[in-house]
């Protein structure tokens, strides 16, 4: 940062403008999708250098998780990618379950797939809304929100919360679906494929949209892998890497869906991939609903699933009490439930590969929780994607890689 201040001072004092024109974009800026700060060096309107600065939403989730029990740490994962919190929960639970060697009942697995795909549609809808708004298509924004609202209503019906759902539990899910939810989901899957063309009419073939997105932020498949891009951003470059197919988890290997791949590697192909993924996710929900009918009445939580209330060890320092007068009762003994070991488990979250690396020392709380957030990697790839483009393009590029700062800063 001192460099930047220096250059600005120098520019103010001198009449010569041989230094690049510096623009500080964010952390409060409508198009950075949160508190991302980009430090841009411009030559005219062309970007010479782009330096992303993050950390404005850093809440220390990894450190906090080390001091909570496994179940308690799950609610923190809601707050990572808060647009698709169900997917984060599922990823975390799967990682812990893999470490414990726990088998989840089939019904719970199907339900988890449904909420994951619902989260994917919700996330992609929000992405499309903001991406279109960034490029100036205002109406698409509200159409997407209209439909996303429906999904959030279903989430509310499922678990009582709309955004930070905390729905799965280690060993299963917290509540079973009832008939009302299933009916509503059937209605949604019936109606949703008719809604997608509405957005597409406004932008898909529109010449302005095509001009703004085609050939912008191009990245080759090889380069994208090297930069660590995952999810739709990688598949837009022609690499068929989808964890639902590559390393299947839950019941994805039984389901019939296509992995959306486009080959251009630009903003437009990433957009196409996501549009296709929404359709595929809708198909998956449909199939899962049919499968759900086959295992009606089965439990949704594993027999050996640990109780939610696993006694945890006394914290190293007393926690700050909510009230000046302290009065917590923390007396329990430590009971090992998760065996010693480590696991890296990644799921295909809406934004890309969401990996949890959990190290257990055999005690009631994790020794280390590391979250490999797709947004973190995608932001680190922004310089490579945006250099040499124009200022207006960086907006399109940020939109196209789909970032959430809660997940990036953790």
């Amino acid at each position, binding site marked *: *940062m001192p460099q930047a201040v220096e250059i600005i001072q120098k520019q103010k004092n001198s009449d010569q403008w041989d230094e690049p024109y510096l623009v500080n974009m964010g952390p409060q800026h409508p198009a950075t999708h949160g508190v991302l700060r980009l430090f841009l060096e411009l030559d005219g309107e062309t970007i010479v250098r782009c330096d992303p600065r*993050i*950390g404005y939403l*850093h809440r*220390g989730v*990894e*450190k*906090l998780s080390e*001091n909570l029990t496994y179940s308690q740490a799950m609610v923190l994962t809601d707050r990572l990618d808060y647009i698709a919190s169900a997917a984060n929960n599922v990823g975390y639970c799967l990682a812990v379950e*893999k*470490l414990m*060697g726990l088998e989840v009942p089939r019904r719970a697995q199907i339900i988890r797939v449904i909420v994951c795909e619902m989260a994917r549609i919700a996330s992609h809808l929000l992405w499309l809304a903001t991406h279109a708004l960034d490029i100036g298509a205002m109406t698409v924004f509200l159409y997407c929100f209209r439909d996303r609202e429906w999904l959030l209503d279903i989430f509310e019906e499922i678990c009582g919360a709309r955004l930070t759902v905390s729905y799965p539990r280690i060993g299963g899910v917290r509540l079973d679906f009832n008939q009302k939810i299933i009916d509503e989901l059937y209605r949604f899957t019936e109606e949703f494929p008719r809604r997608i063309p509405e957005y597409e009419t406004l932008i898909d073939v529109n010449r302005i949209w095509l001009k703004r997105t085609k050939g912008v932020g191009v990245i080759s498949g090889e380069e994208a*892998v*090297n*930069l*660590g891009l995952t999810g739709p951003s990688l598949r837009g470059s022609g*690499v068929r*890497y989808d964890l639902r197919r*590559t*390393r299947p988890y839950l019941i994805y290997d039984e389901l019939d869906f296509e992995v959306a791949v486009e080959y251009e590697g630009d903003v437009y192909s990433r957009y196409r991939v996501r549009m296709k993924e929404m359709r595929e996710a809708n198909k998956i929900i449909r199939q899962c609903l049919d499968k759900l009918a086959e295992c009606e009445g089965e439990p949704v939580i594993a027999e050996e699933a640990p109780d939610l209330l696993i006694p945890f060890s006394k*914290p*190293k*320092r007393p*926690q*700050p009490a909510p009230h000046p007068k302290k009065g917590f009762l923390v007396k329990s003994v430590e009971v090992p439930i998760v065996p010693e*070991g*480590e*696991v*890296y488990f*990644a799921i295909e979250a809406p934004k890309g*590969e969401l*990996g949890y*690396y959990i*190290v257990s*020392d055999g005690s009631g709380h994790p*020794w*280390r929780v*590391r979250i*490999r957030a797709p947004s*973190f*990697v995608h*932001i*680190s*790839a922004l310089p*490579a994607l945006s250099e040499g483009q124009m200022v207006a393009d960086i907006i399109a590029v940020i939109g196209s890689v789909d970032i959430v700062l809660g997940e990036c*800063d*953790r």
Partner: protein
Amino acid sequence: MLVLEKLQEKFPEEIIETGESAGQTYVVVKREKIFEILKFLHESGELLFDHLADLTAVDWLKKKTPRFEVVYNLFSIRYKHFLRVKAQVPEEDPRITSVSSIWKVANWFEREVYDMFGIVFEGHPDLRRLLMPEDWEGFPLRKDYPLSLEPEQEWQGLVELKEKARRLAPFDWYQRVPGERGPSEVNEEAKEG
């Protein structure tokens, strides 16, 4: 497993331990030749670990020596095999070679590990703090870093920030009491100062 055999063949002295945890293979290596090992894993045609899924560190305070482990989770998109490489880093000399020239994605991962654990990556192009403010002291994810402190102890910059907030307080509309210093006075003071 093919990968382990190849690795053992190529770097027999470097490997300290191999094993499996939750169905995933890992290999613990010495830190000195970590760059060569990872370069081999990345470029060897039969292994082709092209996707560095994750790079992080673990602090084993009082549990293991050496204290730190830098963990590389590797995946090959073509062959679909997974390998975890762990390099041991001692507490007294927390340094390891950077791999950001092999995978560009490692750039920020390494910056984050430096930020959180204080492990220095040699040969990194731009090793600065990433998530924490640049004037932060201490490395938050080390196990001996307390979970909470008084705010002033945590971050030195806060004192300065509070002072600045106090200085700018007269600009707040609800604090403009007649007779007190207004913005213009503060401006003049600032100019003099």
